[in-house]
């Protein structure tokens, strides 16, 4: 009988243990006990036929969507006269372009969902078949062994009995091995499907904004607006409003009284660009009230998209950022991905000063979710500054403020250097993440140790769901050759790749497998391969 609440990770872990025990069992009764324990682990659950049916339903929709997509793209490519539509001033041409992009995305999403479900069905079929084969082998092994020995039977094992036991052990070993492979196949396939489907759900972006104050046309436009440089940064990796932003800003609009709603709509209508409009909504999503959004608007109004990106989006993702250029061979970055995106404000990086990786990650994390805060750092009190040195000075001060807020350790620099930061405990990291990021995204953080591959595999779906929705996830890196640790932040996910911001001032991509199996040095250096702790955001 399967144990209640048995997780897929439990299953593969238990079967790995049983496999080791079967292969070393030198007693008939022990072998019988282990075989029965292995048989008590539940087989992979799920109905492949239902999954295939769902996949076919999604695939049938693709043709209809493709037809819509072709027609909308034709209108977008042909061009239409300048005219204002929507309640907040989106240009008709922009709206049609956004609709075409949205139709493209929808076609791809349905195709991807069908593929994910079909893949899951195939893998589950294979896993269940392999599991069945393994169980038959285990039952055969039990048949070969017969009943358990009594006390006196157990005292002497004849040669023939030993030979039969060893043969049964070999058959049982193959059986448990099949059960384990089946559990791994089903577990990996289910995680991959959950990851892909969660990501696709978060990409149904315009639908996240549940408010009547914004027209469907404007929702499309807002969801389609990119923060990146069109020349280098793909729009789909640099969406200005995350799924969480769209949902929170819609809710904020709904909570406003009629007068405030009208004011907000007026600001949106008067915005100088789609980017300005989206940043106003992002400020609203970050929890700022109408008065604060008005003040923010006054500072950014009519600024060009480059100025807005530079001042309000600390991290952008280049189109070639996933290319594998190998690893840095030596030096301070030994083992790191050679391909990384350094994150600049003019010629100053969004990087830590001194031993402040924990607060520095959180400062950049907050700046990513709260454009009003980002502008305070880049543009100063009046929001008008555009100077790298002044930015660096403000960034340093803010890193130190959070260092104090998180009760960071300080050390005295002998003889007259004064106090300098000397790291922070994980509890301090949780404190500042909750004070600085949570109020602007809506999800509290809880620190979770992830010292093993299984623990990291288990936490992955939570991480991926969070970053797909736009909530950064701070993590701790460590390794056997160091005792200092390092704080970085997972900020994005595409397929089985995770994007990591390192407060040394860069972002790079690692695979899920790298995260689970101790190859996070790709995001830092060879002394820091293991993700040993994660600040997991709650819903």
């Amino acid at each position, binding site marked *: 009988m399967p144990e209640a609440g048995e997780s897929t990770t439990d299953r593969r872990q238990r079967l790995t243990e049983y496999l080791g025990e079967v292969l070393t069992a030198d007693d008939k009764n022990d072998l019988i006990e282990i075989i029965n324990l292995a048989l008590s682990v539940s087989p992979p659950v799920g109905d492949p036929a239902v999954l295939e049916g769902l996949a076919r339903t999604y695939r049938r929709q693709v043709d209809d969507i493709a037809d819509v997509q072709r027609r909308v793209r034709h209108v977008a490519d042909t061009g239409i006269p300048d005219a204002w539509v929507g309640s907040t001033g989106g240009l008709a041409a922009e709206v049609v372009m956004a609709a075409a992009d949205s139709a493209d995305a929808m076609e791809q999403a349905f195709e991807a969902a069908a593929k994910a479900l079909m893949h899951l069905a195939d893998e589950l079929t294979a896993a269940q078949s392999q599991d069945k084969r393994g169980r038959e082998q285990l039952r055969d092994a039990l048949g070969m062994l017969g009943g358990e020995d009594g006390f006196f039977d157990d005292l002497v094992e004849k040669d023939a009995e030993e030979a039969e036991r060893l043969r049964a052990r070999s058959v049982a070993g193959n059986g448990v091995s099949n059960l384990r492979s089946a559990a791994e196949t089903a577990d990996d396939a289910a995680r991959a499907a959950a990851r892909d489907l969660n990501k696709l759900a978060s990409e149904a972006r315009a639908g996240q904004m549940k408010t009547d104050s914004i027209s469907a046309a404007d929702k499309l436009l807002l969801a389609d607006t990119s923060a990146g440089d069109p020349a280098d940064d793909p729009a789909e990796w640099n969406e200005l409003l995350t799924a969480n932003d769209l949902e929170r800003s819609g809710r904020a609009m709904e909570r406003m009284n009629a007068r405030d709603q009208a004011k907000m709509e007026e600001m949106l209508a008067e915005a100088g660009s789609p980017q300005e409009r989206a940043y106003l909504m992002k400020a609203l999503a970050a929890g700022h009230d109408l008065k604060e959004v008005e003040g923010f608007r006054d500072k950014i109004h009519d600024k060009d998209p480059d100025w807005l990106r530079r001042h309000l989006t600390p991290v952008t993702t280049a189109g070639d950022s996933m290319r594998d250029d190998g690893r*840095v*061979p*030596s*030096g*301070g*970055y030994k083992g*790191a991905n*050679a391909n*990384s995106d*350094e994150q*600049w404000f003019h*010629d100053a*990086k969004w*990087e*830590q*000063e*001194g*031993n*402040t*990786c*924990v607060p520095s990650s959180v400062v950049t994390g907050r700046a990513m979710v709260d454009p009003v805060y980002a502008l305070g750092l880049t543009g100063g009190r009046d929001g008008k500054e555009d100077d790298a040195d002044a930015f*660096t000075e403000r960034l340093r001060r803010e890193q130190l403020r959070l260092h*104090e807020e998180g*009760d*960071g*350790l*300080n*050390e*005295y*620099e*002998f*003889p007259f250097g004064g*106090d300098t*930061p*000397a*790291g*922070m*405990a*994980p509890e301090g*990291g949780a404190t500042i993440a909750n004070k600085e990021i949570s109020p602007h995204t809506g999800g509290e953080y809880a620190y979770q140790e992830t010292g093993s591959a299984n623990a990291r595999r288990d936490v992955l779906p939570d991480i991926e769901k969070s970053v797909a929705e736009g909530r950064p996830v701070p993590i*701790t890196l460590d390794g056997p050759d*160091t*005792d*200092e*640790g*390092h*704080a970085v932040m997972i900020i994005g996910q595409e397929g089985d790749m995770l994007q990591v911001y390192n407060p*040394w*001032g*860069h972002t790079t991509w690692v695979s899920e497998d790298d995260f689970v199996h101790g190859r996070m040095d790709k995001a*830092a*250096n060879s*002394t820091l391969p293991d993700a040993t702790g994660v600040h997991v955001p709650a819903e």
Partner: protein
Amino acid sequence: MRKALATALLLPTAAVALTGCGLFGPTTYEPEERAAIEVDAGEEFTLSVPANPAIAEYWYLVKPHPDRDVVERVGKRLETEPSDPDVIGDGDGTLYFDFKGVRPGTTEIKLLHCPAVVCTGTKDNPEPHPTSSMYAPVPTATGTPGNDPAYFIYKVTVR
């Protein structure tokens, strides 16, 4: 605010051990002493530079390499200081470039300082350099290493 008292108490001892009094080994020179280093032929000496692992700070010996008839390269060592394992992001370290005076003469040793910046050789340019085009390191006169890559040039005279 918490303070690392143990580290503070250890620092004076460490400072004596690291600075160039010659009691415990080769004379050691800090970056601010690089303008005029004088050693005897056959004498070993060390250039000591800060290399904080918490910010991936590192130094590279770059071309033009010192005249081999004047000084000989002996080796390179990185020493990091232990920190509290329950604390994230603490770290301190020192990189030592060891040399030996060969024959009387004067030469220069050029080090590239890279704080939190990827510096490495590439196929086209095997000499370590910042991989980002945003950096164009130049020789600096400052004593304290800063936040951008820079060259530190040590002038060494062997007596």
